[in-house]
């Protein structure tokens, strides 16, 4: 768990501007994609997924409880990084890819989870527990700070005599 007392600097993050150091067109996703159409990209994935070895691996992953949407995301994001298709095409084919995987799972009689949102109600995740604990800590800190603050001395209010109101009211002379 993250320790607040140790404010270790994050050293594995990219340096600002690092993404601009490579020449344009050097990265696969900066070149024209191999499959410009959604149909082409989908048939490429379907061929790869339905292979004997790949499908076995896929079913193993589903049995482990990996949601289909996570699998599909990994697949299509990898495709974008390799320059196979654009991000847009990836978005368009992801529902169809999810359909392929779910149909394969049904055919193989493997229980699957479609989206990671399915199990949100089931049990709290480690991250949600950590977030909850953090909130609690912050709340407790807030209470302590309020307690530690010196309360101002009570100001004794002097009773103020009410002046008579109205146009014709006579003011009392100051003594």
């Amino acid at each position, binding site marked *: 768990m993250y320790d607040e007392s140790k404010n270790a600097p994050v050293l594995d993050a990219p340096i600002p501007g690092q993404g601009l150091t490579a020449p344009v067109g050097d990265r696969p996703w900066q070149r024209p994609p191999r499959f410009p159409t*959604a*149909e082409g990209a*989908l048939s490429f994935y*379907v061929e790869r997924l339905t292979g004997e070895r790949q499908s076995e691996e896929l079913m193993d992953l589903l049995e482990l409880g990996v949601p*289909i*949407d*996570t699998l*599909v*995301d990994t697949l*299509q*994001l990898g495709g974008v990084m390799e320059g196979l298709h654009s*991000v847009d095409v*990836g*978005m*368009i*084919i*992801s*529902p*169809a890819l*999810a*359909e*392929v995987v779910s*149909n394969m799972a049904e*055919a193989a009689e493997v229980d699957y989870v*479609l*989206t*990671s*949102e399915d199990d949100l109600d089931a049990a709290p995740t480690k991250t949600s527990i950590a977030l909850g604990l953090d909130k609690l800590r912050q709340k407790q800190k807030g209470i302590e700070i309020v307690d530690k603050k010196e309360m101002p001395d009570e100001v004794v209010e002097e009773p103020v005599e009410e002046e008579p109101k109205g146009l014709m009211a006579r003011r009392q002379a100051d003594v």
Partner: protein
Amino acid sequence: MQTRMSTNAILNTRDYINKKQKKKSVDADKPLTGLLSRDTMKVENEDPLPVKLVMDIRKAFGNV
């Protein structure tokens, strides 16, 4: 960010197909009359590409 977007794409496509299937069964009983009857003469509205692809996959698996 992108993960959330494609999850939404999957869910939205499923919702669209489900709604369309439900709507069809209701509309099939009502004959269109008057100005609405012109709808039959129009070219049918095409489904979005993700929906088409999902339907193709369902057909391929014999799961329509």
